[in-house]
């Protein structure tokens, strides 16, 4: 066989193209793709959920492709007929966007063995919630001697220049605003009282962070002593030796349902269902509830333990009583107007 320059080039280009665009060679037989969140979620899912799924499904191939909710939606939207993702994970706001844009399938509830084990708030027919994210008060126990008990404590004069909040880009920031509105007589449809309250909070405000992750840095640097915070994010900081504590305020901790969905037109529909089933089992949720993950379970058969039982809830009954769920359908309607208003009015 004679290799001339031209045929060599063609071969090289073809091989290169196959490497660059693997979809060319195996369009159909791709493994199950689960778009989890980045960071600690990815670690937790890699260590617990993936092994449990593979054990139950004869070592079926799957990959984690961690990305933000908005990126998941953009990617699926760009290729609706042959989506590159099979299973999506969403915060309540983006979940409604994904459902609204017709990107997800209803969960086959009647086929599911574990759906009915979930507490009623987690039973979402378009995609159940395998865990909750919980927002409460975070404080530095070295600077704040008496632990706060209520959202109203943020307004105490002793915290002058020590309070941190985030803007409304995040689920946390928006959820917190709604909770403050409710505390002052507003609701998901009327957050005017919350904006007035933030106006009064200004002397205390040390920082309005661009995202919840930046709050963590501010605690580490002693820039702030108290702020609304995500239970899981605080546990990670605590494990790294930062002096922070989490308390659920007496008005109730804000709980976000993080929901998991089968993507419409997924070529791996059956495996996607199996993965979600694995995420709903009491076994997986129990492992994820224990250190180092401390993820709040939604399966009513999980016995609460450890840090979650200590600061959040000892059992499902207490959880239902202490958690506040918000109406994100209502929130989404006006969220962009609120963000605009926040941009304009909150200057410190």
């Amino acid at each position, binding site marked *: 066989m004679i290799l001339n320059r031209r045929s060599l080039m063609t071969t090289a280009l073809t091989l290169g193209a196959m490497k660059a665009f693997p979809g060319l060679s195996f369009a159909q037989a791709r493994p199950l793709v689960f778009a989890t969140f980045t960071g600690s979620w990815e670690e937790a899912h890699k260590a617990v959920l993936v092994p449990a799924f593979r054990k139950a499904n004869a070592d079926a191939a799957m990959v984690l492709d961690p990305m*933000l909710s*908005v990126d998941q*939606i953009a990617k699926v939207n760009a290729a609706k007929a042959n989506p590159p993702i099979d299973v999506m994970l969403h915060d309540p706001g983006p979940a409604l*966007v994904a459902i609204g844009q017709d990107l997800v399938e209803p969960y086959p509830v009647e086929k599911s063995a574990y759906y009915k084990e979930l507490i009623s708030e987690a039973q979402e027919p378009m995609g159940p919630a395998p865990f909750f994210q919980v927002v409460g008060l975070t404080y530095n126990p070295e600077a704040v001697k008496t632990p706060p008990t209520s959202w109203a404590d943020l307004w105490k004069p002793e915290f002058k*220049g020590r309070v941190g909040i*985030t*803007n*409304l*880009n995040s689920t946390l*920031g928006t959820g917190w605003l709604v909770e403050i509105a409710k505390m002052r007589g507003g609701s998901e449809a009327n957050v005017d009282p919350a904006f007035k309250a933030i106006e009064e909070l200004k002397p205390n405000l*040390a*920082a*309005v*962070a*661009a*995202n919840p992750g*930046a709050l963590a*840095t501010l605690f580490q*640097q*002693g*820039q702030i002593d108290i702020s609304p915070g995500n239970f899981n994010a605080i546990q990670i900081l605590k494990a790294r030796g930062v002096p922070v504590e989490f308390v659920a305020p007496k008005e109730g901790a804000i709980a976000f349902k993080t929901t998991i969905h089968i993507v419409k037109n997924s070529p791996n529909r059956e495996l996607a269902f199996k993965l979600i089933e694995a995420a709903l089992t009491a076994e997986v949720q129990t492992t994820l509830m224990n250190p180092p993950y401390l993820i709040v379970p939604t399966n009513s058969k999980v016995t609460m333990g450890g840090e979650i039982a200590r600061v959040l809830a000892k059992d499902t009954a207490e959880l239902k009583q202490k958690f506040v769920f918000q109406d994100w359908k209502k929130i989404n309607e006006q*969220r*962009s107007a609120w*963000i*605009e208003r926040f*941009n*304009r009015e*909150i*200057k*410190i």
Partner: protein
Amino acid sequence: MGTAPASRDVTSYGMGLAAPLALFFLVFFVAPLLQLLWLSLHNDTAALHWGLGQYLHFLTDPFSLSVLGSTLLLGAEVTLVCLVLGFPIAWLYQRVGPRLQTIIILIVLLPLLTSVVVRTFAWIVILGRQGIINATLQSLGIIDTPLKLLYTQFGVVIALAQVQMPLMTLPLITALGRIDPNLDDASCSLGAGSWRTFFRIVLPLSLPGVIAGCTLTYAAAITAFITQSLIGGGQMLFMPMYLYQQASTLQNWPFASAISIIFLLAVLAVVSVFTTLGRMSRGYGGA
């Protein structure tokens, strides 16, 4: 061109060699840009109705215009700080021995070798309430309560100036290196003092470097999403964050596209002012 030349002109090259890069630009730069433009010309988020609504919204909204204004101003401030601090370094570089030159170039380049995120986090440590600046001032008894440096315009300008400094210093070093040192001596021997020599000889001749440095620093400073949001925080809104908010949090892609196009045009306008100045300075330097 049209007629086949008998002998090839050695000063002209075939366009063939540029074709791969041109194609690459066409597919990955021009096409997305056109798509962006197309998207920005729609009035609704689903991109079904054509119209100039997004542009009208931006250009008639004082708040959006103030975001654009503060971003352009931020760029100007950062560029000025970089110029004032960077020029002496470049000047020094031309006047020291080779060993010190190596050290200076290393110091100038060092920031480029670490990621912007790392450099920005370092600034959070420096500017924080218990940071280096506040701790030093407090231990010297100059201040009682820590100054608020993080999440202020001042903090953003200082951090960005440090992060973008190499983009200013490197062109300046090159430009100053091209100036014939004899000109300095000639100026002095003709009776001009050091300052007069600097303002009449060195500065005009280094203008091409100044303008190149300013253009680079300016463009980098106003688009520096990471540093702006980490040091500036959530309530100081600049164009990159405004864009991110609209595109990512609110999924309002047409408005986000319009913001990008307007931002792009504003930056192009500023850069073309710099380029015009550059062209004028070339005439000035040659005169």
